[in-house]
C-alpha cells in the first residue's frame, strides 16, 4: 500500500488547481536553470521551504522524505566544488534543493488522483496519434507511485530478515526475494484491479 506524501488540508496551496500547480512547477523548474546568482537561488530555496511549511506537514515527515537526498547533494557539492569552485557548487546545491522543495510542496498539497487526472488530460491530445492510451498511462503512473515506497519497505524488511540469518552482506539474498515479492505483489494488485472491473 502506498504511503502518501499528500497532507490533508485547506491551505492556499491545497486550493489551487492541480494543473496550475504542475504548470507553475514546470515554469519554476525551468526558471531555476536561468538563475545563476546564489543569492537569488537562496531566495528560491527559502521560498520553497516556506511553501512546504505552509502545507502544514510535520517536520519529521519532511525529514523522512528528504534525508536520503542529503547524501546526493553532498556528493554533487563536492564534485562541483572540486571542478568548478565553491560558488558554483553552492549554486548547484541551492538549485537542486529549491527544485526538490517546490516539487515536494506540490505533492504535499495535491492529491495523487488529481495529479494523475492532469497527466491523463494532458495526454488526451496524443491519443489521436493512436500511439498513446492516456487512461493506461495514467494508471501506470498511479501504480508506479504506489509501488515505489512499497518496494523500498520490502527491501528493508528483507534486509532485516536476512541480517537475522547472518546473510546481511549477500546481495543475491536481498535482490532475489525482493524481485519475487515485487512480482507476486504486482500480480495480486493487477488481479484486484481486474476484479474491480476497471
Amino acid at each position, binding site marked *: 500500500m502506498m504511503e502518501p506524501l*499528500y497532507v490533508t488540508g485547506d491551505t492556499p496551496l491545497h486550493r489551487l488547481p492541480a494543473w496550475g500547480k504542475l504548470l507553475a512547477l514546470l515554469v519554476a523548474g525551468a526558471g531555476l536553470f536561468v538563475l545563476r546568482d546564489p543569492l537569488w537561488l537562496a531566495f528560491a530555496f527559502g521560498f520553497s521551504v516556506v511553501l512546504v511549511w505552509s502545507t502544514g506537514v510535520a517536520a519529521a515527515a519532511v525529514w523522512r522524505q528528504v534525508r536520503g537526498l542529503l547524501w546526493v547533494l553532498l556528493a554533487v557539492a563536492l564534485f562541483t566544488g572540486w571542478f568548478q569552485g565553491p560558488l558554483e557548487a553552492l549554486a548547484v546545491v541551492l538549485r537542486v534543493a529549491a527544485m526538490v522543495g517546490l516539487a515536494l510542496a506540490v505533492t504535499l498539497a495535491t*492529491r495523487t*488522483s488529481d495529479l494523475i487526472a492532469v497527466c491523463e488530460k494532458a495526454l488526451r491530445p496524443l491519443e489521436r496519434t493512436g500511439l498513446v492510451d492516456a487512461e493506461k498511462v495514467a494508471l501506470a503512473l498511479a501504480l508506479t507511485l504506489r509501488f515505489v515506497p512499497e518496494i523500498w519497505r520490502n527491501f528493508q524488511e528483507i534486509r532485516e530478515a536476512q541480517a537475522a540469518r547472518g546473510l546481511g552482506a549477500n546481495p543475491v539474498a536481498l535482490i532475489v526475494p525482493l524481485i519475487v515479492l515485487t512480482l507476486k505483489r504486482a500480480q495480486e*494488485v493487477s488481479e*484486484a484491479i481486474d*476484479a*474491480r472491473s476497471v
Partner: protein
Amino acid sequence: MLIEFDQAVVSTPQAEVLRGVSVTLAERRIGIVGPNGAGKSTMARLVNGLVVPSSGSVRVDGLDTRQDLKAVRARVGFVFQNPENQIVFPIVREDLAFGLKRLAPDRQQREARIDSQLARLGVGHLADRSSHTLSGGERQLVALAAVLVMEPALIVFDEPTTQLDLRNRNRVRAAIDGLPHDAIVVSHDLELLEDFDRVLVVRDGTIAADDTPAAALRWYREHCG
C-alpha cells in the same frame, strides 16, 4: 443471482486444482470451506472471472465468465484476503473513486456514492484518511466499500477475516451480515458461516459436502479436522 458451474475444471501445469465441479448456487448466503490448497479460492475466483475454467463453464445469471467477462465483473464484486492488494490509491476517498469514473462521470455524484457506502459500513470518518494509517479491520472495510461503490449484485469474499484480530473480525462480520447483497464467502472462520443458507466443503478439487451450515460444518470437522 444464479451461478452455474458445469463440469468446471481448472488445471495448472503442476496439478488439477478443480476437477469437474458441477453445482448450481442460488442462495443469498453461501459459504465455502475446506483445507488449504483444496480449491476454495479458485472456485471463488471462477465466479468473478479472475480464473477461467480450463474446460467446462461457469455462468453468472446466464453470462459465461469466459465470453462475457466485463458484464460478469460488473455484477460480481470481489473482496480479497489481503486488503493491501486491493487498495491502489493512498487516500481512502481517492481509492473508492478509482473505477467509479466511468460509472459516475459527475464528480458530485461520485462523491455522494462514496460517502454513502463508507457511512453504510460505519467508516465515513475515514474518507480523507491515508489508507496506510488504518487498522486491518478498517482496511478490510475500506476494501469492501470500494467494491460496494461499484454496485455489484453479488460479492465474493476470499477469507475476509483471516488476518484480523477478534474485534476487527467482528466488525467485518457485522458488515457482511448487514449487506443486502448476495454473498459467497470463502473462510476458515466456521463461526462466520453458521447462519448462512448453504455451505460447500471443497476437498481435493471437488465438492465433498454440500448442505445446510450445521450439517456441512459437522462433516468438515469430522473429515478434515
